């Protein structure tokens, strides 16, 4: 259906958010991905999350690498600037963009090939620098655009469509993000919108490096029996540790929970993440515990989902670099150029 231009008209009674936009204002072009692709569900979740967060679309910069997942930044937030960079290198471009203007929200979208294979180094280094961003990996374990080769997140023993078995160990991006200091780490499933939308909202409101690994089945090349990234497999092995509700700053909290069932965590901007714990022993503020929990469950073939780790008071790269509040891209010569008198002094010192 991709040859049909998306109509711009929308119903006049469509509900607007606090900043006056309808949900449709957060849409982008029509997707060119295969029908049923998990990535389209993630795009829909991004749209819903941004609308609910009352973010003005143009205050988001969306960056991606190369691959099916990276194409999706064209399919949401059409009024935002987007940058489809080169394969595996979105994190560095996002880092530079963020340094230039700290006032925008940075949404990085990538895939498993893009972030775990060719781009593992950039992924890791952006996490350890604590770049403020919402980094979403749409993880399907295969290269879709080149027709179904395994990527580095494919599980050992997983079978591809042609029947080849993957003998290499998988790279777990969640584990790496946890180990390298990401301050908001989650895993979700493109088929679980109720879980995914609040996770994206939490990530967008987070003050540091937020990472969400979203298992997103490739309906064309990796949705068969023997695949560990298929809809059926993930549904059967999904082990959610929590459900979260995202509560915008200042809203009235009404729902009642029995003590011990929920944990409220307030982030920098005042937003509250209300975690409904599904596993009593899971503590999402303990990095080490999160890592061992992940290892133990992965060994059992389970896909642990939910908000896995959160440092609600995280800081970011600008904090480390002590950069000015005023965005660097707005500064002119009067703030940046030391002037001719200072230069004369420099000249004198060089004689």
């Amino acid at each position, binding site marked *: 259906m991709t040859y049909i231009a998306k109509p711009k008209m929308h119903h006049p009674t469509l509900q607007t958010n606090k900043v006056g936009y309808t949900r449709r204002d957060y849409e982008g072009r029509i997707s060119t991905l295969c029908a049923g692709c998990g990535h389209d569900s993630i795009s829909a979740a991004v749209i819903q999350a941004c609308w609910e967060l009352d973010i*003005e*679309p*143009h*205050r988001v*910069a969306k*960056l991606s690498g190369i691959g099916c997942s990276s194409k999706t*930044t*064209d399919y949401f937030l*059409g*009024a*935002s*600037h*987007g*940058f*489809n*960079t*080169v394969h595996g*290198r979105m*994190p*560095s*471009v*996002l*880092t*530079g*963009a*963020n*340094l*230039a*203007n700290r*006032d*925008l929200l940075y949404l990085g979208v990538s895939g498993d090939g893009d972030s775990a294979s060719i781009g593992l*180094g*950039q992924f*890791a*280094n952006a996490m350890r*620098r604590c770049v403020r961003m919402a980094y979403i990996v749409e993880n399907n374990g295969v290269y879709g655009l080149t027709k179904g080769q395994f990527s580095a997140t494919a599980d050992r023993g997983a079978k591809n469509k042609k029947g080849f078995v993957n003998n290499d160990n998988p790279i777990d991006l969640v584990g790496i993000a946890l180990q390298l200091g990401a301050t908001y780490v989650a895993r979700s499933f493109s088929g679980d919108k109720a879980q995914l939308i609040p996770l994206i909202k939490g990530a967008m409101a987070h003050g540091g490096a937020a990472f969400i690994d979203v298992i997103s089945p490739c309906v064309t090349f990796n949705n068969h029996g023997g695949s560990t990234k298929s809809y059926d497999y993930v549904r059967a092995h999904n082990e959610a540790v929590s459900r979260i509700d995202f509560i915008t700053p200042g809203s009235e909290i009404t729902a009642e929970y029995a003590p011990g069932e929920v944990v409220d965590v307030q982030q920098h901007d005042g937003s509250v993440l209300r975690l409904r714990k599904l596993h009593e022993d899971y503590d999402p503020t303990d990095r080490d515990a999160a890592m061992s929990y992940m290892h133990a469950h992965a060994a059992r073939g389970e896909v642990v989902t939910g908000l896995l780790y959160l440092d609600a008071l995280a800081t970011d*790269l*600008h904090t480390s*670099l*002590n*950069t*000015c*509040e005023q965005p*660097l*891209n707005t*500064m*002119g*010569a009067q*703030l*940046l*150029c*030391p*002037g*001719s008198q*200072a*230069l004369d002094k*420099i*000249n004198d010192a*060089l*004689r």
Partner: protein
Amino acid sequence: MKRIAAINDFVIKFANVNGSGSASANELFAKAVMRMGVPVSPRNIFPSNIQGMPTWYEARVCEKGYHGRRGGVDMMVAMNPQTWDTDIAEISPGGYLLYDSTRPLPASRFRDDVLTIGVPLTDIANNAYTDPRQRQLFKNIIYVGALSVLLDVDAEVFDRLFAEQYKGKGKERLLESNVQALHLGRDYVKQHLQAPLGIRVQRADNVGDQIFTDGNSAAALGLVYGGATVAAWYPITPSTSIPEMFAKYCEKFRVDPDSGQHRFAIVQAEDELASIGMVVGAGWNGARAFTATSGPGISLMTEFIGLAYFAEIPVTIVNVQRGGPSTGMPTKTQQSDLLACAYASHGDTKHVLLFPQDPHECFTHSAAALDLAERLQTPIFVMTDLDIGMNQRLCKPFVWDDSKEYDRGKVMNAEELEAGKSFGRYKDVDGDGIPWRTLPGTHPTKGAFFSRGTSRNPQAMYSEAGPDYIYNMERLLRKFKTAEDLVPQPIFRKASAPTKLGVIYYGSTTPAMREALDVLERNGDHLDAMRLCAFPFPDSVRKFIAEHDKLFVVEQNRDAQMRTMLINELEIDPAKLVRVLHYDGTPITARFIISTIHDCVHKEVA
């Protein structure tokens, strides 16, 4: 044997062991000569190593102010036993040797045609100092003291230099011990040897208001003045001191006095791919950004350079060239990345290159590169090299016009969008090939676009349609044509007599070329000269070539890369352009240029 005799015109070379503290002593010597009003151009010849390997410091003293390497060594200060034999062999007949005579050496290790001057440096240092590190460090100052008497450099200039370095900075003890060491050397020579030598320094007034600095520091300063706020880099010889000096200058000039916060962001990236990626991201988002690197870094950055070219992102890259290919000669100089930079990345690309000749131009060109990058929305390369970048050189003082505004190029703002100005990201509305852009976050509903490395139509929509692709590629060529007039223009020098011979050169070859041209001219070999300051080549380059029958293209690489570019871009008959190539990793010398061109001219006549 006739001794070399020359006042204010000689080459002295120091053979040292790296990590021994010799560098600052040698620099002290050079500065002292300059304080006598006599220009000096020193060059470090050093290994890719931190401690224990041979290193040399070659200082050319030249009242006429030729800063190129001359070739030949009139005096050797041989402080490194490892390289003794080759060092001794390098001295010109009739030249001079200063060595540490503490331990006797057999006569066979010396040369009859060289005047040997022994000073027991180790003995003097050991008698004066007890601390082993001090003995080592001050031995260097002692030989500078000895040299100062041998070459007739006034003690008073050293006193001033020491005072400037140590006085009032809580380093008074260092001041005293340095003065003491200097005089230990001076006194020994006065008491035991004949001085001055046939080569010597005499007060002159040829330094003027020139400054003495290295190209990397100058480039860093230019980037500060030019308004770079984001720097991303990865350590690589010989470019590392650019980001380091940039950081130093930023700490001095770019800290908000009230908040203490920084008006800059510097990231040492994990590799060159990430450093250029960050620069691309910052440039896309409207900050002036740069990276500094050398050949291997350029190779790694190539994919991103293609993206920046095609998506039209301002990027500034300072390439301090070294010997290639591969790891090549990391601490040696070459001009061998021209083709790699001019046509970097797959597909059809062309990039703007600037060729500074000295630290002064490293400053101006680096600042200009930031303007050009935003004006042209494309990568700009500042093509310096190790010879300019890592050696201190006398040059014109830095100048800045305070009325100058940065040229931010064609950036459409919210008011213009609101007023209904039509916006097509890749549309040539002004006929110069340069499209308008908007910065992320500018307007709630207008002017957003999607940047990508794939082909697109003028409205930035994905398109593989042939006409869209051709429109875009032709517009990029038009933009490159526009660049011809914006880049630094070539500099011409006419011979004193009409000639059909010409010479073309650029960058660090310039000082040696200037000297070579003077000598050739004196010898009756008349050549019109053109110094290329940038690529693309403006029409004046084509015209100059057309006006001459034969032109020498002098450069420091094996494959005559500039010659190839001239042939390729201007469709010049290759037979017209004669290669003059020097690429052993040492800076080109005037003597090499003179003899090569002279032989060629006279062979032709014969």
